[in-house]
């Protein structure tokens, strides 16, 4: 431990406060009793698909595309998830299949 227990608690609370601010802010700005402006309702409709796309890219942000294997495990596994999901429409199967393939690829194929 680098910090004292009290300082550690201070960091925990500071991280919690910063995180909570980002979680509560929209709900404070647009309280439930008042109808939010139309533009906010619009954003509420289009942001979920946009953020899902952003999160997929965010998850693979640390891949080194220029070095071998050029993100092959990630791209192959994502392709497997897409194929499995369009074929079987089973959320758990798609995720389990993609994850198993990824583990195989990073542990045994592209080592």
């Amino acid at each position, binding site marked *: 431990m680098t910090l004292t227990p009290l300082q550690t608690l201070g960091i925990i609370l500071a991280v*919690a406060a910063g995180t909570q601010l980002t*979680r509560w802010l929209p709900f404070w700005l647009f309280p439930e009793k008042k109808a939010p402006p139309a533009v906010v309702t619009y954003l509420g409709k289009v942001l979920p698909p946009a*953020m899902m*796309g952003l999160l997929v890219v965010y998850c693979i942000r640390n891949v080194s595309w220029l070095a071998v294997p050029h993100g092959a495990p990630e791209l192959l596994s994502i392709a497997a998830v897409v194929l499995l999901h369009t074929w079987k429409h089973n959320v758990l199967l798609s995720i389990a299949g993609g994850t198993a393939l990824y583990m195989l690829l990073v542990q045994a194929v592209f080592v």
Partner: protein
Amino acid sequence: MEETKQHRRRAVLRAAFPATVPVMTGFLCLGVAYGMLMQAEGYGPVWSVLMSAIAFGGSMQFVAITLLTAAFDPIQAFLLSVMVNARHMFYGLSLLDKYKGLGKVRPFLIYVLCDETFSLVSTLEPPDGVARKDFYFYISLLDYLYWIAGTALGGLVGNLITFDTTGMDFALTALFVVLFLEQWKRPENRPAGLIGIACAVVGLVVFGPDNMVIPAMVLVLAVLLGGRRHLDRRGEEGAL
């Protein structure tokens, strides 16, 4: 009375638990990794669990390890948390409607609103006979508990795990891919989905992996607002 209550809870769990299984896989792996990293820096399970339970900040908690091993600077910790977690603001904006009128559970739902819970709640619909409030509550609670359980495991017995879990956290990437596909099923969601991917790629290429999120978010917001006239289809029946 008691029996119907229990019955109801079972029905909710039957709907909510399967939806959270991918999150369980990912959170247990990452939680264990977090607990072990904290342990390696001399912060035992009490500290790592406290951080996970109070801050519940996912990737920010990994960043915070560097804050815990440097000179005490809570202001920097606060500002860094706001920046790393800025994407939560978009989640709240998207859930204003779904989280309306949920009464007592609402503050808890907001407190533990993370990437994974947002993705599930914004994409999935509770099955018939399951109350919206209960469905959201159990998804949020289970995800929260997985993270804490993973952290505790990592801090307590992390070094006993001999099974090679490398790559298991891909479950979260796969989850986001699947939920993206679920969103994709509705044709009116497709342009926004592509905008999200494109803006994230631009953010990644221009600003690099460590600083991509906020530029990508700003870009998403700008494109969505700029393209509102094309993307906003009024009169379409509610997208509930």
